[in-house]
């Protein structure tokens, strides 16, 4: 995409990011979810789109980040075991300073610990290729959910609550022209921006090109002396970091964390991130963003007007995507307008005869 197009798309997003709380306060949760969905799609695209490794395991980092952040937030002020054991019978309330001291630490750890987990998991999972990797990560995602169910400190299958928004004189604390919803809306927006610009930079470095090379022909990349394993694992670290923080924010927005329905929900979020990326066009920077917007629109529409049939409608959408836009919207656009993507289309070049002049 040329810079002008990218700039206008970005300004549009910035406008929505800043003014939505004033324009559509009733839909704030949906918009927060949209930013998180964009992070889902952007990070899934590192593996699924750029690198050609279809992962169903990125949800692990999301759930893990969610639990870690909530644990840190609670553990900062209270005893975590007491909190989950109380199960709502006893109320613990964070004061303002406890809340805002614990949150940044929680967010940071929610990024870093999933990264370490990705380093360990990636070091052996990424040996697998193609379908085997997909199946392997699918299993890991389910295992993570089951594992969380056995963790009593996190409330096991009962789940746990997150700290409630602090009150000042009996009123919800006001921040950013509103309370908790506005605050987390802006945090998710910032997370989206940071993810977007990090990946935008990443894809323009040698690292980004090598990810594409791995997708196109991993054997060749190895034969040219590229330690592909190192690049694949590092790529997963990026996904894990942003997914972890996305999970931390989602947990706080949702207010309640449960192992298989909220945190490690591979059947919904785990599939959504794949769908969004494919819908928008995998392997491109803007594809996942466009895909996430379209998907969120479809999803809200289906859930509102086809309740009970929403999964059927979603299935129908998947069929349409796969049949008519196998390369996604961006891929379709690339076929129509290759010059927008910096590709030089020169008929002469395509027809040119290859000759070697033996005299020079």
């Amino acid at each position: 995409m040329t810079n002008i197009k990218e700039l206008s798309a970005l300004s549009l997003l910035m406008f929505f990011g800043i003014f939505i709380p004033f324009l559509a306060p009733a839909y704030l949760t949906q918009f927060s979810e949209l930013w998180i969905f964009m992070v889902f799609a952007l990070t899934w695209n590192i593996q699924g789109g750029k690198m050609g490794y279809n992962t169903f395991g990125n949800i692990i980092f999301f759930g893990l980040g969610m639990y870690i952040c909530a644990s840190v937030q609670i553990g900062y002020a209270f005893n975590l075991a007491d909190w989950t054991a109380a199960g709502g019978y006893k109320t613990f309330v964070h004061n303002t300073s406890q809340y805002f001291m614990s949150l940044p630490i929680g967010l940071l750890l929610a990024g870093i610990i999933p990264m370490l987990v990705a380093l360990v998991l990636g070091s052996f999972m990424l040996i697998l290729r193609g379908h085997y990797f997909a199946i392997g990560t699918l299993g890991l995602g389910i295992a993570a959910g089951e594992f969380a169910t056995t963790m009593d400190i996190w409330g096991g299958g009962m789940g746990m609550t997150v700290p409630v928004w602090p009150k000042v004189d009996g009123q919800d604390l006001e921040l950013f022209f509103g309370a908790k919803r506005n605050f987390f809306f802006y945090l998710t927006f910032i997370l989206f921006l940071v993810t977007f610009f990090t990946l935008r930079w990443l894809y323009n470095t040698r690292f980004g090109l090598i990810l594409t090379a791995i997708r196109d022909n991993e054997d060749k990349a190895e034969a040219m002396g590229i330690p592909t394993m190192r690049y694949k694992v590092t790529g997963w670290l990026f996904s894990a970091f942003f997914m972890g923080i996305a999970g931390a924010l989602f947990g706080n927005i949702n207010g309640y964390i449960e192992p298989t329905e909220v945190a490690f929900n591979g059947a919904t979020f785990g599939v959504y991130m794949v769908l969004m990326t494919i819908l928008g066009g995998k392997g491109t920077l803007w594809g996942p963003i466009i895909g996430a917007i379209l998907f969120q629109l479809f999803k809200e529409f289906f859930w509102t007007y086809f309740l009970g049939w929403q999964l059927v409608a979603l299935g129908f959408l998947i069929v349409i995507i796969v049949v008519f836009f196998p390369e996604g919207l961006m891929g379709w656009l690339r076929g129509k307008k290759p010059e927008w993507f910096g590709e030089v289309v020169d008929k002469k070049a395509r027809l040119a005869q290859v000759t070697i002049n033996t005299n020079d």
Partner: protein
Amino acid sequence: MTNILEVNNVSKFFGGVRANEDISLSIKQGSIVSLIGPNGSGKTTLFNSIVGTHPIDNGSIKFEGKELSKMLVHEIPPLGLLRTFQQTKIYGQMSCMMNMKISKKVSNAYTRMFDKLPKELDDEAEQYLSFVGLYEKRNLRAGELSFGQQKLLELAMALMNGPKMLMLDEPTAGINPTLINGIIDRLIKINDKYKITLFVIEHNMRVVMNLAQHVFCMAHGKMLADGTPQEIKNDKRVIDAYLGAS
């Protein structure tokens, strides 16, 4: 002249299939050596063994005195030993220029991973692309090239990496007869100008005769004969192996 590559008593079995049995050969620095043999005689297996694609069952492989047989695939090219493939392997979705630029040998240390590609690479890439006659096609996606053109691109990518020794697996397969002359010329220039040792698997005897200074011939996983092209051409065992005499 010293030997750049020494293969000693290498064996590779796939279950009961003896793909390579007790193979020994040595290649002098700066020479052009050819490896011939009927289909299925174990030539590509030997290539794969040398570059570490699969572990060998027996023997040793030394490149400039360094033992390769325990090294990983990606550890060998930085030493200066590079191979191309019989079935072309290129980065199909990327332009030819990108294919070239990414083939440049650089450090893969964590601190250097996120460097941008330097602008100077463009000139170098264009220079090698015109060397193999692909300059006009530099902006096309590599996947759009024909099989023969992809072979040329692979050769150019290998040169971009700046190897000391190149192992080419059938560089002229699928290329039209007129262009083959060009390739022979280029291979000789590569050897002469860039001082790259060449080890070439080839079926086209015209190419072998024009190119190689020394020829090894394999059959049924064993080294059958070696000598100058003329000696090999007149060797009864070689003729029998190719023509199927018992």
